[in-house]
């Protein structure tokens, strides 16, 4: 089960809502137990027996947290922290990276004579493993650092680790945040209820109207791998993928936050109009916020951060971005994606301190901001090209064409090659750009809409839902971040 599955909206979410917010209204403990059991049920539908990995991670970090909190002995505390890290990273290592490691080893060994090829295990990636292991690890690390105390109840902690709206693809929630959300019995008012539904409808619309329609165009070019010398096609496909990944992922987040709202739990925002960013640093403040802050707090700063000299800062930044890239998937293009983002961040950090650059932006004012926005977005979309294409034989020519190396521009070829639904996709892309721009200036309008009169809310949301139903393509695409 996932958020594009109709059963989720027809049966699962209403059932949880009725049980938790109606039958058990005002009774905190039964509410949390219901949320936990339904979260496990959701995970079972999504991932089957892999639920055992979630249980292992939950039990271990619960124990580690309690033991570390109870002990003042540093050695004991370190031992329990190591157990947590080794187990969680071990689960990630085995299920996410082992086959990738073996494949890479086989590739390298091909260079040598008498090399023996090692068989891969063919392990399937358990749904959500990258998210819940990061959540539970952060819990243990924070207790080790004495930044927070452990949960009082195992059920509460298990609910934090497994809370179904954000279990599979985030946002990555901190333990303290969730504790505050569930410390009293869960309640909502009519505005919160409508806000929850608004977010869900926004999410469904973003996913099915925008992400899935533009995905057809991006896929047609990057999967077929034809006409890669056409600059127009490569740019268009890259633009489409950039829009797809944002709408796909932020749609999931909207639905997750909306579902949580209906259950009286507020989850943190994960996006803030990332394509309005005017620098690489700005981009990372707006994109996948829960992951970038996690990486900052648990990787970048422990590796030295920016307060231990330039060399250390470059090392910490590059390591963080490389590992952040690898977190997305066991493939070299993700590593390259992280590397390029790391380089962009470093270039920006040093570039902005160069005298004439500083002077230029001081003199040019808004025009300068426009230029920095454009340059940032070209760079960001270039990294999406790397992110999208795993096949080297397609990636390298696409990268060259992106910068016009050996490419040509042929509108007729573009028109002939693009999938059947062309004009509608262009309309969708243009509408997205306009709406994203407006949303960057005045906000997404979710709160505004949920505070309107019920009739106005009903009309706007009814139109949005109908548009979604009729404008979605015949084939629904899985959420991209499910793979991570």
């Amino acid at each position, binding site marked *: 089960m996932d958020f594009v599955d109709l059963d989720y909206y027809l049966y699962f979410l209403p059932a949880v809502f009725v049980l938790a917010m109606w039958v058990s209204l005002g009774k905190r403990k039964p509410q949390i137990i219901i949320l936990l059991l339904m979260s496990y049920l959701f995970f079972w539908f999504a991932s089957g027996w892999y639920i055992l990995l979630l249980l292992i991670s939950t039990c271990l970090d619960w124990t580690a947290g309690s033991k570390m909190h109870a002990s003042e002995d540093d050695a004991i505390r370190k031992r329990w922290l190591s157990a947590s890290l080794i187990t969680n990273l071990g689960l990630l290592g085995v299920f996410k990276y082992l086959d990738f490691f073996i494949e890479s080893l086989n590739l390298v060994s091909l260079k040598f004579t008498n090399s023996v090829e090692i068989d891969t295990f063919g392990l399937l990636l358990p749904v959500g493993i990258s998210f819940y292991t990061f959540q539970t690890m952060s819990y243990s690390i924070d207790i080790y650092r004495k930044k927070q105390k452990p949960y009082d109840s195992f059920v509460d902690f298990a609910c934090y680790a497994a809370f179904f709206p954000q279990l599979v693809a985030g946002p990555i929630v901190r333990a303290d945040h969730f504790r505050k959300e569930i410390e009293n019995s869960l309640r909502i008012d*009519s505005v919160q209820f409508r806000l929850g539904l608004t977010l869900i409808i926004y999410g469904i619309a973003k996913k099915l109207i925008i992400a899935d329609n533009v995905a057809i165009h991006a896929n047609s070019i990057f999967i077929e791998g034809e006409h890669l010398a056409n600059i127009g096609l490569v740019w268009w496909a890259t633009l489409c993928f950039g829009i797809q990944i944002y709408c796909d992922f932020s749609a999931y987040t909207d639905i997750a936050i909306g579902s949580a709202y209906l259950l009286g739990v507020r989850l943190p925002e994960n996006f803030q109009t990332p394509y309005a960013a005017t620098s690489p640093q700005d981009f990372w403040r707006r994109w996948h916020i829960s992951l970038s802050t996690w990486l900052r707090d648990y990787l970048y700063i422990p590796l030295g951060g920016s307060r231990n000299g330039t060399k250390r800062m470059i090392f910490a930044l590059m390591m963080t971005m490389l590992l952040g890239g690898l977190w997305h998937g066991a493939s070299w293009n993700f590593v390259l994606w992280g590397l390029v983002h790391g380089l962009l961040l470093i270039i920006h950090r040093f570039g902005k301190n160069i005298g004439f650059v500083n002077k230029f932006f001081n003199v040019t004012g808004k025009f300068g901001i426009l230029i920095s926005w454009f340059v940032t977005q070209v760079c960001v979309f270039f990294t999406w090209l790397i992110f999208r294409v795993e096949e080297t034989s397609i990636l390298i020519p696409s990268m060259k064409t992106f910068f016009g190396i050996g490419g040509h521009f042929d509108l007729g070829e573009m028109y002939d090659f693009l999938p059947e639904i*062309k004009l509608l996709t262009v309309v969708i892309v243009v509408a997205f750009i306009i709406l994203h721009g407006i949303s960057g200036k005045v906000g997404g309008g979710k709160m505004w809409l949920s505070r309107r009169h019920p009739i106005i809310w009903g009309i706007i*949301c*009814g139109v949005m839902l*109908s*548009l979604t139903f*009729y404008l979605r393509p015949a084939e629904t695409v899985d959420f991209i971040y499910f793979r991570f």
Partner: protein
Amino acid sequence: MLEQGKLDIVTSIVILIITGLLVSHLFVNTITKPRLYDGTINNLGRYAFTFDAYDYIEDNSEEYVIAIGSSKMREIFDGGTIGNLTNYSGDFFNLAYAGDRPYVRMIEIDALIRIDPKMVIIEIGPNVFSALSTPLPESTTGRMSQLMALNTEWTTQSWEKILDEEDKKNLPLSRFEQVRYFAKYTPEAIESTLDYELELEEQPYSCDPNRGTVHCVPSVNSDEFDEYIKYPIQFRNSLKVIKEGNAKWTIEEYYGERLDNYLKSSYHNPEGIINKNQVALEFIIEELLENDIQVMLIGLPYNPVLIDRLSEGQWEYYNSTISRYNDEYEITIVDYLWDNDWIEDDFNDYTHASRQGEIKFAEKVAPEINGILTQ
């Protein structure tokens, strides 16, 4: 939540549902249906025009006889000529379409009964008893799905009980599935509409009579529609073209191995058992009779060259079934299949009537119709 809050939520949801349904209706009727009917999205649309036609006939004619069947009926039944040759004051409409099978046609039965024609003339022939596989071929599933989605009588769907259980799994039986079927085609419908509006593409299947394409069905709002559903645009005369030497084949080749292969196809070989098509045919007959609508079964003629090439007993099942129907149902059966009066020039090809054949058919069938309708 407070009482006011609950009321707000209920109001919001009710308005959301009503708006959703209204917008949905707008989408289906102004964007998707026109593109399905005009054959833009898939040419199956051309076989599903009949629901429009039923509504049109009900609104524009007082008494009428309706002919249904395959392209054989479509090519031989000239409603205007037949009307002129009978004493019946009502109209004669030809709603036959290419590749028709009773199992597919039965989806229209509720709409057909609703408009209450005086008589329904149904083609009967070896093709009607031919096999229809389970699961259904993709093209048949597509055609049936489209008919189900366009069906104006979706609250009745009396034919559901006739459907094979296995077939039901692949067909949009509920209204929700039927609306989803429309939704599936909407992006393509919008794209085509934009193309036409911006004049980037030409609309397909223009109704130029010289093209003689089976796909050409004028819009229900056009002036040509009335004439069309009485006498659809006809196939070109292939035999004439071949004999004039303007075709890929010589007449010897056309009547040689090509005809042998044609006769071997399942479409011309009754399965010899009560299969899905036959069950559906009997269902159509029974439903019409139950609603006091007269039924005439017509066995349509074939090119005599083809008849001469039939193997011994190849269409015997047709004969025995006709005979059984004669005994079991209070219907009129007119059989021209074995009528020796038909000559090669009455046909455009192996099976479809030429203009000469249409006139001969009208002259032959008019007295039979008079006999029934003036009783």
